[in-house]
């Protein structure tokens, strides 16, 4: 489906998500399914941290020479008999794909999992033009039945539980016997597989994304766990690869390096079950493969990131580790972010793609705990990049007035210690008086966001700086007194002798 942008309503979305008991249960799976597995698999690989450095360096190098690698890639694809199409915008990409589908008289299109397809709203576009897209990744298939957007970039249906999926299958597969047993995840999987098998065979065009495009060989690479990607790209007569410009890497060897951190960071697997390399259409003598091989390379605003502050974001290999480890994502899930890319990577990327005026909440909805950066396989400094967005919002006066006024007032005092010290002393004494002797307050004026959920401690009766001054003065007085007494004692001693 075309993802409607609801990022401006992030707060409202988040509030609804926090109240959604089913969603909250489902979010528990993120922690159980990803975090421990990643930690275990990373700790088993002594060179994991070095591989992260290498992966970062490969991506940095590629971005520094992206024009050359894109041209080299196009040349190689062409030599292998494929066609590269350049799409500057989402609209361009939709048009190019639709044109290919129309020319091939496609009625059914199978799709491997592709976040770029979500980004450009491909499915709706195809449906509008009488072509039926069928998602073949199990998670994507489920959310397509529900007409929902993915809530996670590698586990699109993670927000759902088994009961919901069973209900969706019973509703959508009405031709199957009503009394069939769908109690086990395996039976759901078997049913999806049987339904999809027919679609694979009927498809006229197969569309996949790409985890990598290799300049050296003109190859596109997908990593999957279900094998659906292979059936999507081998069985139909036409294979369209849809990928964004930053998927380029120079060589096969570079891909093998990055693959070693990708699955480990994503699912905690050493390797994904399938890693599929596709180069051009079927050659004479090949047992299978498409007649036509197209690659649609999307820019959609990315090239403008290359020369700017957000360039490092283009290193992203879409593993999802940042969202798996994000406390905010863990609390509200992916849909709250209101567009295609959730979590910390979305908080940086989304404003670049749809504008900070629409996505303003996203880089702010972070505690800056730094766990995303800690686990990112290509070491993207996500908190720093989110802060850059906050800078821009502040410069453009997009940050909320309350924040600006609050900060301004605080700065007014904090910049002037001669004013700050007496003012804060007075404020804390007042607060202490207001708080009385209970030790804490259940309600505090202007701090409803805090006291709605937590108590606030009553401050000690004076500031540290004031107490310290007194303490030091008292120490000095005692010292002087002791010295005076010693002198007196000495004099008395002299007299006595």
């Amino acid at each position, binding site marked *: 489906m075309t993802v409607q942008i609801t990022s401006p309503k992030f707060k409202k979305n*988040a*509030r609804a998500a*926090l109240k959604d008991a089913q969603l909250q249960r489902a979010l528990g799976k993120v922690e159980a399914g990803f975090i421990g597995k990643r930690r275990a698999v990373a700790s088993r690989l002594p060179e994991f941290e070095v591989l992260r450095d290498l992966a970062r360096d490969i991506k940095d190098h590629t971005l520094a020479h992206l024009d050359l690698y894109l041209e080299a890639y196009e040349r190689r694809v062409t030599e292998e008999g494929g066609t590269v199409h350049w799409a500057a915008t989402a609209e361009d990409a939709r048009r190019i794909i639709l044109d290919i589908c129309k020319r091939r008289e496609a009625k059914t299109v199978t799709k491997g999992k592709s976040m770029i397809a979500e980004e450009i709203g491909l499915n709706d576009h195809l449906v509008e033009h009488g072509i039926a897209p069928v998602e073949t990744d199990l998670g994507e298939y489920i959310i397509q039945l529900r007409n929902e957007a993915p809530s996670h970039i590698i586990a699109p249906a993670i927000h759902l539980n088994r009961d919901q999926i069973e209900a969706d299958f019973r509703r959508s597969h009405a031709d199957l016997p009503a009394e069939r047993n769908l109690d086990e995840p395996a039976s759901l999987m078997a049913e999806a597989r049987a339904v999809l098998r027919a679609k694979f065979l009927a498809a006229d065009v197969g569309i996949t994304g790409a985890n990598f495009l290799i300049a050296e060989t003109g190859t596109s690479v997908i990593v999957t766990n279900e094998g659906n990607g292979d059936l999507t790209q081998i069985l139909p007569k036409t294979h369209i690869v849809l990928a964004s410009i930053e998927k380029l890497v120079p060589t096969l060897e570079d891909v093998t390096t990055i693959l070693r951190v990708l699955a480990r960071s994503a699912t905690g697997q050493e390797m994904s079950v399938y890693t599929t390399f596709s180069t051009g259409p079927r050659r004479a003598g090949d047992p299978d493969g498409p007649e036509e091989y197209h690659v649609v390379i999307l820019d959609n605003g990315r090239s403008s990131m290359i020369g700017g502050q957000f360039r490092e974001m283009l290193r992203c290999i879409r593993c999802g580790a940042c969202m798996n480890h994000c*406390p*905010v994502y*863990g*609390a*509200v899930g992916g849909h709250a972010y209101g567009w295609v890319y959730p979590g910390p990577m979305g908080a940086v990327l989304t404003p670049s793609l749809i504008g900070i005026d629409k996505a303003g909440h996203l880089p*702010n*909805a*972070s*505690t*800056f*705990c*730094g*766990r995303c*950066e*800690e686990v990112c396989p290509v070491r993207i400094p996500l908190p*720093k990049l989110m*802060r850059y*967005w*906050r*800078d*821009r919002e*502040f*410069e453009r006066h997009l*940050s*909320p007035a309350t*924040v600006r006024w609050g*900060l301004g007032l*605080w*700065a007014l005092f*904090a*910049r002037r*210690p001669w004013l700050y010290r007496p003012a*804060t002393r007075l*404020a*804390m004494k007042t607060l202490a008086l207001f708080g009385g*002797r*209970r*030790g*804490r307050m*259940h309600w505090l004026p202007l*701090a409803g*966001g*805090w006291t*709605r*959920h*937590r*108590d*606030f*401690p009553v*401050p*000690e009766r004076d*500031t*540290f*700086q004031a*107490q*310290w001054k007194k*303490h030091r003065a008292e120490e000095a007085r005692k010292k002087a007194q002791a010295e005076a007494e010693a002198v007196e004692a000495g004099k008395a001693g002299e007299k006595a002798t």
Partner: protein
Amino acid sequence: MAEVTGPRPRVGLFVTCLVDLIRPKIGFAAAKLLEDAGCTVEVPSQSCCGQPAYNSGDRATTRQMAERVIATFESYDYVVAPSGSCAGMIKLHYPELFAGDAGWQRRADALGARTFELVSFLVDVMKVERVNVIYEGTVTYHDSCSGLRELGIREQPRKLLGSVAGLTVAEMKDADVCCGFGGTFCVKYPEISNAIVEKKAENIVATGAPMLLAGDLGCLMNMAGKLQRMRKAVAVRHVAEMLAGMAREPAIGEPPKTGGA
């Protein structure tokens, strides 16, 4: 690393706004620990490191505050803060803030190199091996994010807590996961912050420890406030209070002792 002038390094205590305003005890605990470790402690007139402005995108205000902090503290051998978050701001983010302004950047770099969070300063710089404190009981320890991930503070507090006679540290699940405070985050997104601190509070309570310690007052106030609202009997204190032998004083949010000062 700074040259230490004379046998007793002069430490400028950057007490942090929250400690200054809400819980001065922590400042006294920090001063005691520093003096016990052989430092001369001074508290120059100060306010905020500028982090709230920095994280809200207001670089101009941040710079003004940072310049004041640098000018105030650069004459000391070390700057020490009882907070990983504020120490991290001075140590790591000031140099970033002044990038491209050679004069200020040099001063920011120089100050950053001499700025430390309290407990890591005691262990890593002053080579403190143990504290002379007796406390019979069990505590659990929360790793505040900035200290943990920006400054690598993990073993230092555990090491010193391990030297408190009679004290057991019961590790909680996900001690290294954010408590949901996040500075201005907790007031900008109160419901999300609450959901995160609820999980944290459950992990704290599950240890059975009657006391929670951590190294940042913001996180401590957040967790204490939540535990109290949940009516859980967990006393919450800054780790410096325990290490300075002040853990019998009223905990965060507890009423002052009657009759006492």
